[in-house]
């Protein structure tokens, strides 16, 4: 077990009087693969937005010894918290290599930035192999297939060297094989990192989740292993249907 854990206490996000996240407590152990599931509007994405600094929240979200809430987005990112978005957001006009190189470079000094890239950083080549895009490294990211863009995003998190990955529906729109490949990728990644995945795909969750948190209407409905959560009558009622 390595990496750093995430501890969320009494997290609230309120939009114009509507509590999108309404007092969530969450503990993700280091090295865990935690799935966040729940019906639309349950507050999954808002929770991730709050932890990464995109929306204002009250309560507490600690990553290791550091409080995340109240810091600007790029500071949180530099503390080792990375995320992806529901729609894969890569820099479409830049090549795969350039995308990864930018992700690797937040700590670069001015002189390095003003020079051209002479060689491929080791972390970038390693990530290219891990996400399986080494052969496509000089193509514009905009020409990648949907699944490849998602992998590129995960690769960007790897070279960014984040310790906590927050992935928002990483396998949406992927084929069956692509899903399995992504799941394997998550297992590799979680070896020395903590992973939180928002997902609707139940098969994917059963195959790759370590632990699961079910959100409903901004609150935690159930928490535990896949089997525990599936057996929870409350969950069956609101979400899973008769499992």
């Amino acid at each position: 077990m390595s990496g750093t854990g995430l501890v969320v206490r009494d997290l609230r996000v309120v939009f114009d009087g509507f509590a999108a996240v309404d007092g969530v407590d969450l503990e993700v152990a280091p090295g865990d693969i935690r799935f966040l599931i729940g019906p639309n509007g349950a507050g999954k994405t808002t929770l991730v937005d709050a932890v990464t600094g995109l929306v204002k929240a009250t309560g507490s979200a600690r990553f290791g010894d550091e409080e995340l809430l109240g810091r600007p987005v790029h500071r949180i990112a530099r503390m080792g918290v990375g995320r992806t978005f529901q729609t894969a957001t890569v820099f479409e006009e830049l090549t795969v290599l350039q995308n990864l190189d930018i992700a690797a470079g937040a700590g670069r000094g001015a002189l390095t930035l003003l020079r051209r890239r002479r060689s491929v950083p080791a972390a970038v080549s390693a990530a290219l192999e891990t996400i399986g895009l080494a052969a496509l490294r000089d193509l514009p990211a905009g020409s990648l297939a949907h699944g490849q863009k998602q992998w590129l995003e995960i690769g960007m998190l790897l070279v960014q060297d984040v310790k906590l990955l927050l992935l928002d529906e990483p396998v949406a729109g992927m084929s069956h094989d692509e899903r399995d490949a992504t799941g394997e990728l998550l297992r590799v990644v979680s070896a020395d990192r903590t992973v939180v995945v928002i997902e609707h795909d139940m098969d994917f969750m059963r195959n790759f989740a370590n632990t699961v948190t079910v959100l409903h209407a901004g609150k935690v409905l159930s928490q535990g292993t896949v089997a525990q959560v599936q057996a929870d009558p409350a969950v069956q009622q609101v979400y899973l249907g008769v499992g």
Partner: protein
Amino acid sequence: MRSLSWRAGAGFAVGAVLLFGVAPFALSDFRLSLLAKYLCLAMVAVGIGLAWGRGGLLTLGQGVFFGLGGYAMAMHMKLADAGPGEMPDFMQLYGQLDALPWWWRPFANPAFALPATVLLPMLVAFLLGSLVFRRRVRGAYFAILSQALAAAMAILLIGQQGTTGGTNGLTDFQGFFGYDLDDPVNQRMVYFIVAGVLLLLLAIARQLMRSRYGELLVAVRDSEERVRFLGYNPANVKLVAYVTAAGMAGLAGALFVPAVGIINPALIGIVPSIEFVIGVAVGGRASLLGPVLGAVAVAWAKTTLSEEFPAAWTYLQGLLFVLVVAFLPGGLASVVRLLRRRRRPPPDPAPVSPAPVVAQEVTA
């Protein structure tokens, strides 16, 4: 990589031969001084190409920085013409002042005035940019803000006739660092300086665009939020491009004064600020050479056509802008790219990549 930089070197060499070897002999003194004027406008365009084309910052107020550089240089030349301790001719003419205003005084010293033509615009851009980018003002709001600033600066200059020359601006320069500006040989020298500086600015812009910073700037343009999640502060990235463009515009204004012999509010207000951008859009904002060629072409067309049809030029210019934006968003530079692509067969479509080879990776 090597062949690319070889090509760039060749490109610069061809540009230098055209500007230094061909133009001075092919053009009359009058046309050559017009070309010097166009090349000054092209310097502004290089900066806009960087800030707008690569950084997505629609700088509709570059006249402010052009004007700051121009007035700084003009003030120095006026004071040099007047001689030590004397007031410039126009101040004596209006007769409102007993002594030189304090903020004119430092410009008598070339060691202050020359750096100020570049550093003053950069400082203003830095202060403005720091405020604006951190507050995440962008897109049309940023454009309107810079536009308003250009208007405000022109109005301010017009209002302070006693110390700035008002609508007339600063003109009637005799010498440029001791050289008589009426002498065609010296005018030619000014042209050479202008051409040399333009090539230098192009080299700087090229380096910035091809550096890691250039890649980052494009990333910020296309998805600012994503860059923020990678741990960068996009405000700083934009600030660098904005300040660089301001410095280029300031230098352009400074050289415009000896090359054309005048700087006034009509050259730096809303209309000229928009015209800078039109030239860049027509040429192709995201390319290196497009803005330069577009700026020169539009300025040249303006001179030629407004000689023939003085009233029609404004409409033609507007039409040109609309046509380019509607049908050729990449500008004329994109035509070259299209032709090149048509001549060559398209490369193979992206091969379908295999799924990630995860398992081997971990154990390795």
